[in-house]
């Protein structure tokens, strides 16, 4: 039972790190710079949030499969088959959690009064220093929300993971797929235990986040 738990934590952690970097970077670039086709990019990033996970999984299968655009290149160049490995589960978790990270980071950046960044410019700061010292710290509460929600979404990912990583015990079986398998095979006690763990874990994460945000001074302290 602990195998799927540990694998889920590993996959969700790695996926959240990638979601964090790409989410924050894309939110900053698309909302602070003049980017051609901004709406198209935003729609593409947000799409996995509203598409059924099986559709996202299907697209990923087309990309990562043996004959997929990326999958075939990886096999040809490195002899590495990514499909039905835990790496594929990380990619699936990353894709489905990215919209949550992106939307939270975007809202956080848009919430910042542009006068702060303008003032920093008149004081001689470079764009990079402004981002590190003003923009990012002020957006931090929103970014933390994004990280927690992205992690919860990643750890609970089922549909797309099942399609690209399968449900191989000890290799790609995550908590959600293990619950599905336990129910299918009538192993109710294991299903109950995993369901309980996931519910409590997600509850504690969201509850702690809400408490932290309540306590935190929104003026940036």
């Amino acid at each position, binding site marked *: 039972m602990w195998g799927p738990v540990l694998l889920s934590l590993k996959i969700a952690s790695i996926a959240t790190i990638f979601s964090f970097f790409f989410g924050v970077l894309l939110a900053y670039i698309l909302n602070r710079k003049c980017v051609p086709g901004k709406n198209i990019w935003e729609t593409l990033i947000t799409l996995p949030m509203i598409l059924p996970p099986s559709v996202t999984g299907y697209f990923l299968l087309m990309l990562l499969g043996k004959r997929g655009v990326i999958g075939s290149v990886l096999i040809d160049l490195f002899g590495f088959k990514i499909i039905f490995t835990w790496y594929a589960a990380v990619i699936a978790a990353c894709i489905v959690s990215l919209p949550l990270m992106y939307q939270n980071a975007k809202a956080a950046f848009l919430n910042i*009064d542009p*006068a*702060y960044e*303008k*003032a*920093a*410019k*008149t*004081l*001689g*700061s*470079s764009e990079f*220093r402004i981002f590190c*010292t*003003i923009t990012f*710290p*002020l957006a931090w509460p929103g970014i933390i929300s994004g990280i927690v929600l992205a992690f919860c979404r990643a750890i609970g990912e089922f549909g797309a993971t099942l399609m690209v990583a399968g449900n191989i015990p000890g290799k790609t079986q995550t908590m959600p797929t293990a619950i599905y398998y336990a129910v299918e095979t009538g192993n109710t006690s294991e299903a109950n235990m995993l369901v309980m763990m996931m519910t409590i874990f997600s509850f504690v994460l969201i509850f702690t986040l809400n408490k932290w945000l309540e306590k935190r*001074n929104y*003026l*940036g*302290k």
Partner: protein
Amino acid sequence: MSVSFTLKKQLDQFLLDVSCSFPDGVLVIQGESGSGKSTILNCISGLLTPDNGIVAVNNRVVYNSNQSINIPVQNRNIGYVFQNYALFPNMTVEKNILYGLKNQSEYKMKEKREEMLQYMEYILDTFRIGHLRKKYPYQISGGEKQRTALARAIVTKPDLLLLDEPFSALDLKTKKIVYQEFLDLKQQMQMPIILISHDPKESDLFADHRLYLEQGRAVEPFV
């Protein structure tokens, strides 16, 4: 010391078309809301780019559309106090003041750190905000915010100081005190100042030169 600007910029409702030059002292720009006052400051500071024109501060051209000169805002050395002061909410008063100093090339060397801190102390004393050094902007009053914002803009020794309605958020009692402080400061500082104000009383108090704007154009003769 002198400041001159000729600016043309198409805004949503009208064309901003203004030209002005003053040798020293305080230029007060007055006008209705939306008449283009803040746009002028933004164009001079480099936060906005005019459609065409020239901006020169102390004979240094910082913008000239004909010669494709457009010095980035970071390198113009123009201090700016925003209407809401724009003090960084995640930094204490002390860190707000230090922020601009740390960008100065003369203080980038480690051995200059002590000198930089001494200068900061001098500024904190001058503006009587030393006791607020560890406070965050949300913990200080309107008048204190105003003094901190002025100190932060002046600490980098700018060639020109831009003030966008710096007294508008203050109550009457605080205004009286701050007016006197600003008059004292004006005497001490050897730099030209452009002040935007809605209040004719402020104009009478501080103006060495006046510019009255209506729909992006100067309607009163430059005094």
